[in-house]
């Protein structure tokens, strides 16, 4: 007919383990090659650029500490997303869940400035978790009950969360001593997370993140419920025939996924800013970057700890793109976007194969 051999995409029956493991690595390398071409086109030696980025993120104690700081919210949020994505629930709204977590913790810190640390700190984490979880189950309910697409609802809820934060910091929560600026008052010392030495690493949140990664991993691999998540994700109707409750599974997944994003929000206000401010001031899109974290980790919660460090390093090392290499600040977005594209593409090729069909066959 048209003289071209037809290409056919077909699903692999089984995805070999080695391929699952190697696919994201190959994707990452290919992404770096693609970005290298962009660097080359801009007149910068790609190897030099990568060296600068690597040194910026991991080459000095200062750079590495900042990488860890960045990785904390990415880790918590990313771990939650591995769970949601395993259930094939496309939670794009982690950013909103993070903001709500930050908001709830702030409310508590502002309401009880006299409470001692041993009381206020755990409560802030708990209420942050609850807030994020509540924000997370809205799209889950809508999906399970009325089959509303969660991509839309979870994303739209980000804007609602963001406007809620705006409303609070410009309105009722505006600190009286902040001269009209959209800041809440600063948290009491008790409500500020301790930091590691001279760094900005608020280590309690980091410890929580790592412990939770292990916990979720155990949940997924060792419990009946973990099995249910996987079945629900891979084949919802089979799960239903097997007597698994789609609603229950989805709700539990989103309570944890949203709750963990909420914890990330608590870490940011209690560990970095010590107050709530407008959304751009709290999170430069951690909830979205965490999507890359989860996919790069092949939806493995422990893997997410490592990939959050990688992404954190990329963000911190990305400073070098501007400062040392003199490229526009927006280059880092090209960088991140390219990596996500390649990782998602790599995932496709891991699960599907492409066959060239000769004309006669068709």
């Amino acid at each position, binding site marked *: 007919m048209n003289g071209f051999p037809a290409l056919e995409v077909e699903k692999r029956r089984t995805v070999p383990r080695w391929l699952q493991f190697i696919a994201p690595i190959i994707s990452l390398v290919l992404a770096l090659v693609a970005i290298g071409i962009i660097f080359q086109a801009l007149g910068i030696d790609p190897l030099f650029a990568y060296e600068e980025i690597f040194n910026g993120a991991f080459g000095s104690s*200062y750079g590495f500490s900042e990488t860890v700081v960045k990785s904390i919210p990415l880790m918590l949020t990313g771990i939650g997303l591995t769970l949601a994505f395993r259930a094939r629930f496309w939670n794009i709204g982690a950013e909103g869940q993070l903001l709500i977590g930050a908001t709830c913790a702030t409310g508590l810190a502002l309401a009880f400035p006299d409470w001692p640390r*041993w009381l206020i700190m755990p409560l802030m*984490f708990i209420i942050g978790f609850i807030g994020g979880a509540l924000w997370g189950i809205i799209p889950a309910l809508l999906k399970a009950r009325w089959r509303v697409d969660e991509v839309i609802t979870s994303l739209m809820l980000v804007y609602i969360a963001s406007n809620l934060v705006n409303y609070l910091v410009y309105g009722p929560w505006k600190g009286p001593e902040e001269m009209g*600026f959209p800041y809440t008052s600063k948290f009491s010392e008790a409500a500020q997370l301790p930091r590691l030495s001279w760094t900005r690493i608020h280590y309690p949140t980091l410890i929580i993140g790592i412990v939770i990664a292990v916990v979720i991993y155990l949940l997924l691999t060792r419990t009946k419920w973990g099995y249910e998540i996987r079945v629900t994700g891979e084949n919802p109707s089979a799960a239903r025939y097997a007597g698994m409750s789609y609603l229950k599974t989805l709700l539990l997944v989103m309570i944890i996924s949203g709750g963990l994003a909420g914890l990330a929000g608590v870490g940011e206000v209690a560990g970095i800013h010590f107050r709530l401010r407008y959304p751009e001031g709290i999170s430069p899109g951690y909830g979205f970057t965490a999507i890359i974290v989860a996919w790069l980790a092949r939806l493995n919660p422990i893997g997410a700890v490592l990939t959050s460090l990688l992404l954190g390093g990329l963000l911190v090392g990305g400073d070098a793109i501007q400062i040392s290499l003199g490229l526009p*600040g927006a280059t880092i977005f090209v960088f991140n976007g390219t990596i996500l594209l390649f990782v998602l593409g790599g995932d496709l090729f891991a699960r599907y194969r492409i066959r060239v069909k000769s004309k006669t066959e068709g």
Partner: protein
Amino acid sequence: MSDKKIWHVIALSLILVMLTAACAPEPVVETVIVPEEVEVEKEVAPTMKACFIYVGPIGDYGWTHAHNEGRLYVEEQFDWLETAYAESVVEADVDRFLDRFVVEEACDVVFTTSFGFMDGTLAAAQKYPDTLFFHCSGFMRAPNLGNYMADFYQVYYLNGLMAGALSQTGKIGYVGAHPIPEVVRHINAFTLGVQEVNPDATVDVRWLFSWYDPAAAREASEALIAAGVDTLAFTEDSPAVVEVGQEYTEAGTPIYTFSHYSPMGDFGPDSAVSGQLVDWGIIYEDVLMKAYLGVYDNSNLQDIDYWYLMREGGAILGARFDEPINPIFEDDLKAVTVTDAFLGEISVYDLIFTRIDQMKDPAMLFDPFSGPIYDQDGNLMIEAGQRASYGELLSIDWFVEGNIGSIPR
């Protein structure tokens, strides 16, 4: 392990985690332990490095663009000066850039050019006592942290005079970025100008909650026009509002606009009446010269507040440099007259230039914020014979009479 056991382990570990958070030591008075790399030589060097942290892209054609022009100006002025900058720095990330500029780039003076950078700049000033910091548009202080601002309120007042004279509908719109004192002050000054010429005119406000969002600015402008507005001023770092004005004007509905921050006259040749222009270069020149000569050091910036107005040359009237008013509107402005208590009957055009002379006078013979000034509810906020103080202007959070917008509370 059975399911139950796993849940026990999970519950236990969660409790452990909570305990870690709870038992973490109470913060001690912060002792600054600085990593080794910080030991950078800071003697009176023959050269100096000034670093700039920008909130937007340098190509925004607004705030950041203007600051960058200032940076380029000083770089050209002083051969002993080296500069570096970072653009599009998200406010949540400023601490990292501050660290990097001080530790790795060894900057002697760091300028942070967004009010959202204020917390971070103060923290950095305390962490690095040997570096000089200057924060733009804020109020926090430290021995090595100064404040600077080139403020537009006088220029906005002049724009308001023109808006009051030109508007046919008496409905004037303002597209505001963030509802913070700086923007509220500008909207008030603009409204005071409008009211001086046309006491029946109103100013309505739409907030964007963003410094740079051309799409939202366009939407807000169109919404205001749909509500009957024919004159638009704004605070947003792109020419979107002027472009909307030009489009409507070309389509037969004249919309008068006032350019903001950069010379946007070319985006609205038939629409942009005038606007506000800034010269950050002269502030940077003064700061850096004094820092270089040792007039400023890390112990005496506590009370340094640059507050450059028209008199100092920081704020300039016009949609283009060297053109205070778009000539095609001159006749219209000359045709409208007002009666001033001191000046008698005077055309708006002449009033504007009289006011410029008064405000540029070393004694600043006139200031827009001179009482009596009432708020939206008719409360007397500034008494007759009084002028708003620097402190009042810096924290103003109420709208003047004649403004029908609202400040989120």
